[in-house]
């Protein structure tokens, strides 16, 4: 379903009204929502080369990177050779460019509004992640920028660590649950 036309109707976060992480005593853990982002998934044999041509550089499957497109930052998640997710905070300004990309060997489907991005930081973030996710996301196991697809508090997530902070993408319809589960465990970790 295309939503190519712009709208002045403001977006609403899936996390509207959720409780904050907790007391200011929890400075060792910070949880926040990132975005909102416009997002698309580009699929097909030509997906990675197509996005690489936009990025004017090489992309590596499984490694998150950023590039510039028309003066806007494009967050690139190459999930596989034939599946790349691109996200931007440009709020509609890149929509026409992204949706006009499609040669015959790719499909472009908008995901905007369907996913929620959380950011977990603080000096205890890594320790908390060992409780949130059964997959080892520590620096000893995965390099910064590596995309890990794993359960996060029991829901499907894409997780990237960089500079000690974790970016975690979950489906919008489970975002509230994920936030509250993470916040609950964060409170426990801080007490």
């Amino acid at each position, binding site marked *: *379903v*295309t*939503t*190519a*036309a712009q*709208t*002045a*109707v*403001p*977006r*609403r*976060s*899936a996390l509207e009204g959720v409780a904050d992480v907790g007391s200011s005593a929890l400075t060792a853990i910070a949880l926040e929502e990132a975005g*909102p982002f416009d997002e698309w*998934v580009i*699929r*097909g044999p030509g997906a990675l080369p197509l996005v690489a041509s936009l990025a004017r550089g090489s992309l590596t499957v499984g490694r998150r990177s950023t590039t510039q497109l028309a003066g806007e930052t494009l967050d690139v998640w190459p999930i596989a050779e034939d599946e790349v997710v691109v996200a931007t905070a440009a709020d509609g300004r890149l929509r026409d460019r992204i949706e006009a990309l499609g040669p015959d*060997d790719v*499909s472009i*489907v*908008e*995901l*905007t*509004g*369907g*996913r929620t991005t959380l950011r977990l930081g603080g000096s205890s973030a890594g320790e908390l992640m060992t409780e949130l996710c059964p997959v080892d996301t520590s620096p000893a196991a995965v390099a910064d920028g590596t995309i890990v697809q794993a359960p996060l508090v029991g829901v499907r997530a894409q997780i990237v660590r960089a500079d000690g902070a974790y970016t975690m993408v979950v*489906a*919008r*319809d*489970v975002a509230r649950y994920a936030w509250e589960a993470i916040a609950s465990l964060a409170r426990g970790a801080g007490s």
Partner: protein
Amino acid sequence: MTDDAGILLDDGTVARLGDQRWFVTTGTGSLDAVDQWLRWWTAASDRRVDITDVTSRFAGMNLAGPAARDVLRRVTDLDIEREGLRYLDAREARVADVPALILRIGFVGELAYEIHAPADRAVHVWDALMDAGAEFGIRPFGVEAQRVLRLEKQHAIVGQDTDALSGPAAAGISWLIKGDRPDFIGRDAIASAARHGPGEVLAGFEMAGTAVPAEGAAVVHEGRAIGRVTSSKWSPQLERAIGLAWLPAAEAVDGRTITVRLGTGREGSTAPATVRTAPFYDPAGERVRS
């Protein structure tokens, strides 16, 4: 959607949005199964098909009732008149200034529109519909009401009214099958079943009294179970208890009296009911096509 053996897998909708774009909905609990089914068949072929689960991207709303068109007309520029947007049509259009997909379908037996709006702007669409419908007495309705309304139309729910052996002919929805298509999964099995005729069929019934039998209750004959109730509700509109039950084909005759056990298993007394093979409400389907 049927499997190779012609068994019903799911009852969703498919809307063609472009030469190579389709929007597919599934039953609430069937998403993962249908998603895997589509991917399995895609992987086994050399066809280029990309499937994206957009469940969390859209919020679906069903605007239903005799005034549905009057309400929708106030929040969209799309031609939604009877010939502009016919029954089963699908259009991408703005609703309350939000790009959305409008399907002219419903499950409750009334003129209805299914509106799929981006989830992050869906509350705005909902509020706009409620505001536009205020003068018509619009009210939210939930799944319990929907379950009664669909039963009045004898719409089966795959998984509740069907089981792992149910085909479309037995479930009374063979009219949905496009037998003239050259091929589809389950085509031969469905054609074979149609030639032989089903041994059991899903049929409507209405109770003679006010008792509502339990879902799962037996239909009995001379103390022996010959069928089972899959859905049963009290219909405030019809002021009687109605339901769907699997019956031997010979018993599924309009007007035939059957005996329904009111409890499950061997528990409970029995009560008479009458088989009704046509929808209880708007049997000609005039309202959904109005």
